[in-house]
């Protein structure tokens, strides 16, 4: 029983068939990876299999949910009252600010109506909850409990009370995966609020910071500067807080300043997040006009066109004509 010495498990001799099978499977895996990396159809496969994937997410999210419920259940009264008090104060403060802002906002809308612009200050949002699922280490992604059935689309912006968290990258029927702004593959166009300098904040490979690797050396950037979305690129609407610059240093090459920023949003702690419904207006060059040039009925006939120069004005293009005749003559002589 213990010493299982048949062909299946030889003590030393490796099997050739096993190696062949290994190569086949590895090749299959590589093909899958390349196809997925190029075509990105993993999302479609996952959408198709969401009947299996989503319940698993829900079940896997249960422990963290239970943990939170337990924290609330066993939290002492003192702390809850304190928290409640603090939330009340925050609400009072926020309401007072809102009341003051309301008149300004109204004035703003009236002025904007006068200017005939379409921007609006109102937010069209949707509340979503996080599902506590770990999507691989060093991948800054979160799973939300809303999906295609709630009209969620890829590209929607995820915010919390303090700032931008990220954007939706994948949608399944009842869940959605969002990429956080700290993901190494993520970039967000920002403005430095104090100076108006536009730049791009990338996610960093380590930890929960943002990096701004290409600020001009002459730019005025200090630690403590606030970053807000600039609205360029048409993905993130302008004016949402993104983070705060912590330190600025020259890059190794000395051609740029590189800054580290701390995200404004509570990326680790937020439980409830908001999904913005209105995407920013795309602020790029207008799409090229599809039909330029004269109408098709006025276009010269393609069959006639090549012969036109030689027929209508042989003197206007003497060189090509001569060259072509020379070519034909030399081609004809031998």
């Amino acid at each position: 029983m213990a010493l299982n010495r048949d062909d299946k498990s030889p003590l030393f001799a490796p099997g050739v068939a096993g190696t062949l099978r290994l190569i086949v499977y590895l090749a299959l895996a590589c093909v899958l990876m390349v196809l997925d990396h190029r075509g990105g159809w993993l999302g479609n496969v996952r959408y198709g299999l969401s009947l299996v994937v989503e319940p698993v997410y829900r079940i896997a999210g249960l422990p963290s949910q239970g943990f939170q419920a337990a924290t609330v259940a066993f939290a002492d009264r003192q702390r809850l009252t304190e928290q409640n008090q603090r939330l009340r104060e925050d609400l009072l403060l926020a309401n007072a600010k809102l009341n003051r802002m309301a008149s300004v906002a109204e004035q703003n809308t009236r002025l904007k109506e006068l200017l005939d612009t379409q921007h609006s200050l109102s937010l069209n949002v949707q509340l979503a909850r996080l599902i506590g699922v770990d999507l691989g280490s060093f991948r800054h992604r979160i799973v939300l409990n809303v999906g295609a059935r709630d009209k969620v689309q890829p590209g929607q912006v995820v915010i919390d009370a303090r700032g931008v968290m990220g954007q939706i990258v994948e949608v399944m029927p009842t869940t959605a995966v969002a990429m956080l702004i700290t993901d190494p593959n993520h970039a967000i166009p920002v403005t430095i609020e104090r100076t108006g300098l536009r730049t791009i904040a990338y996610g960093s490979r380590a930890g929960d910071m943002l990096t701004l690797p290409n600020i001009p050396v002459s730019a005025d950037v200090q630690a403590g500067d606030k970053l807000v979305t600039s609205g360029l690129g048409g993905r993130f609407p302008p004016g949402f807080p993104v983070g705060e610059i912590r330190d600025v240093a020259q890059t190794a090459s000395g051609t740029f300043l590189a800054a580290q920023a701390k995200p404004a949003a509570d990326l680790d702690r937020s439980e409830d997040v908001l999904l913005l419904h209105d995407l920013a207006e795309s602020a790029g060059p207008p799409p090229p006009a599809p039909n330029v040039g004269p109408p098709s009925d006025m276009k010269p006939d393609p069959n006639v066109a090549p012969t036109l120069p030689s027929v209508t004005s042989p003197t206007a293009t003497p060189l090509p004509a001569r060259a072509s005749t020379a070519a034909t003559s030399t081609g004809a002589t031998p």
Partner: protein
Amino acid sequence: MNRLRVRQLWFAATLLMSLFLMLIPLPGPLTPFKPYWPALILLYWCLQSGDRVTLGLAFCLGVAADLFDGVLLGEQALRLTAMVFIALRFRSRLRFFPMWQQSLAVLGFLVNDRILLLLVRVFGGDPLPPVEYWISPVVGAALWPFVFLILDDLRARLRIHDA
């Protein structure tokens, strides 16, 4: 007959459990310490009953893990297949190692796995991961004796219970 079915159920249940463990998040600061559970469970079954674990099974488990993980289809399939191949090849020797040597071997497997993952990611255009990336194999190797003993004990109990 019934015993066989119970054993198969137990086998499938542990593999499913490993996928769940992979998805369940640890609280914030502990995240880099999370071991790669599917690899540990597969290694246990490789050593314990090598005829049941095949390359095909490892591939399928990897594809399933990729589906849940949603990063790159085929990435974990590649890693698990490679690991199971090495484990099956050295299975007969690994089984008679004392526990600390087995742990060291598992550390080797897991580090190798991380190197494969690093290769795949770098080829895919990702930046190099931070230092904490290399903690997980050490944690996995440290956990190995407990995983092995607990699973072995449970298996023995199930068999006794069933008989």
